């Protein structure tokens, strides 16, 4: 197999488009089901995220006046393609993805795209609620990016390389544990789950940046949200899947860790109220930064 074919397979099959979309729907369902059971509700049927997606695709798209169609539809597509590219780079077990020096940096940039697009979407929508949502998204990304990026810096220092495969393959140590803690602290804010559902708070700013979005454009944004969960939990899981040898055992570790991340996020969301953006920033700059700093110290030692 030459590199182009391997890249395409990674992008479209595993861990890219098809498998990631299926996993995204599964994780969205799992999160909603866990939350519902905790709240004494029945919860949605298994195929609900799929139904939601299909329903939104079938809707007529209403574009607010004064917004360029290219921007309105283009931004979600940019977001979708970036997150799919990021997924293709994740060193999931059995992945055929191309590995190159510095792909970690590329991955971090790609993962940042959905947040950037959300901010742009907020400003493009010409709604005051969306603009407040965009400001909040921008502020929140200052918070959660600190532990997220510093955790990867620590891993890169430990591996003496910015290649993802090298990082995953390295001997398991304290660095991975601290990095994993920093990542799991960052994940609820990155997927905008409670208590950090600040940019998409319904009761305050009417679901924030996506307020003017509807139909297929909203379907894509919702799908991106699911794919982000897959990418982030997968990234965290890939740190642990290096512990075992063989494709099948590491695949099981990969999926189990991902599912645990989803369940943890849902449990946290169900047991907390939404905090304010200042509080969230304070939290990330204090505790998130501490976990990340410990990872760096462990790596340097």
């Amino acid at each position, binding site marked *: 197999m030459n590199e182009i074919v391997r890249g395409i397979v990674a992008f479209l099959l595993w861990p890219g488009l098809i498998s990631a979309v299926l996993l995204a729907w599964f994780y969205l369902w799992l999160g909603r089901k866990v*939350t519902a059971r*905790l*709240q*004494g*509700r029945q919860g949605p049927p298994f195929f609900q995220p799929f139904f939601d997606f299909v329903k939104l695709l079938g809707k007529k798209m209403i574009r607010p006046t004064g917004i360029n169609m290219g921007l309105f539809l283009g931004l979600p597509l940019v977001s979708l393609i970036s997150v799919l590219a990021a997924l293709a780079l994740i060193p999931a077990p059995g992945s055929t993805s191309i590995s190159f020096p510095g792909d970690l940096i590329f991955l971090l940039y790609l993962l940042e795209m959905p947040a950037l697009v959300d901010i742009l979407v907020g400003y493009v929508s010409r709604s*005051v*609620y969306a603009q*407040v949502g965009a*400001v909040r998204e921008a502020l929140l990304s200052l918070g959660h990016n600190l532990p997220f990026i510093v955790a990867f810096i620590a891993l890169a220092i430990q591996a003496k390389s910015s290649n993802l495969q090298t990082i995953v393959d390295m001997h398991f140590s304290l660095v991975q544990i601290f990095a994993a803690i920093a990542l799991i602290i960052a994940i609820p804010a990155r997927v905008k789950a*409670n*208590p950090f*559902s*600040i940019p998409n*708070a*319904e*009761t*305050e*700013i*009417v679901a924030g940046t996506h307020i003017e979005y509807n139909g297929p454009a909203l379907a894509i944004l919702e799908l991106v949200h699911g794919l982000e969960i897959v990418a982030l939990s997968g990234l965290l899981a890939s740190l642990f899947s290096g512990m075992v040898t063989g494709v099948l055992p590491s695949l099981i570790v990969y999926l189990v860790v991902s599912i645990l991340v989803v369940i943890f996020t849902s449990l946290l969301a*169900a*047991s*907390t*109220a*939404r*905090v*304010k*953006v*200042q*509080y969230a920033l304070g939290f990330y700059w204090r505790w998130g930064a501490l976990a990340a700093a410990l990872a760096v110290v462990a790596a340097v030692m």
Partner: protein
Amino acid sequence: MPYRIPIGPYHPALEEPYKLQLSCTGETVQAVEIEVGFTLRAIELLAQRRNYVQDIVLVEHVCGICSNVHATAFAMAAEKIAGIQIPDRARYIRTIMGELERLHSHLLWAGIGSEDIGFRSMFMEMYYVRESIMDILEVISGNRVNYGMIAIGGVNRDIPDPKLILPKVQELRKVLENMAIPIFTRNATVKSRTVKIGPLSKQDAIKYGVVGPMARASGVNIDIRQDLPYAAYQDLDFKIVTSEDGDVQARLVVRALEMLESVRLIESALANMPSGPIRIDDPFPTIPAGEATSRVEAPRGEAFYYVASDGSDTPLRVKIRTPSYINIPAIPLLCVGQNLADMPLIQASIDPCVSCTDR
């Protein structure tokens, strides 16, 4: 340059239509304007076109949450004009209905407050226990919201079996003591959203004449059940709940403790309920010429009625002053200088009832 952001009249944080026009710089609120009147039904005017029996039903529709309070206050005003003494058992039944209504109103409020700070699980839990209170109300009166219990000169239905009510209110006490109050006062995320938010000083509370839990949370010692006891409150040794803090947390705690007090009042009223008739013999008493005021402590505060009669079957004038009407104008006071994220919670913390305000 401040920007303007509207909350309402249609907004997910408001269950009823009124409008807050906020001027903000960044996320800080600089000025607030309030608009009401989206649901004016002119009940005061309709009341002076109908007879007293029809009016009892009409004033129940002032508010879906505290319907019983309005019927009680109207009936009390008419009874004062006519000099009617209602039977003892009726006084106790009115008390029990009033307190059950307070429980379901406060639980509804706790649910909506949780929803406003994004605490879905607490919302579900509060509505779950509220449903059992609604069931009791339905068992007693046959209705879930507009109970039709109050008649001029007594009540329409008896409470046949205290055993139907007692276990459920005792269960509510357990939920409140073991879950709701600890979570509302100790959960770090809840505290970060409620402590020192939306403060109202005691001076401002008196100046703006706010009533009910909002006044009591600011340290103002007013409660109609204590000041001008009606129904059976003077027999039941009512204890007022106040707090000095004046923030959203204080309003939460005052309401939670008030629910415990309501549970106690219901238990005590059920235990001491005298036997006898539930209403006077005359089903349609004549109201002579005269005028009277009556005040009843609704879940949100003091509800005031003024009724004037010319001796015919139709009142000359019915004036309704609901608690929200006097509390809502104080919202700008609570909001200025606060964070935009806190607006839904601050306005919810006074438990505004727009249906009452517009009447």
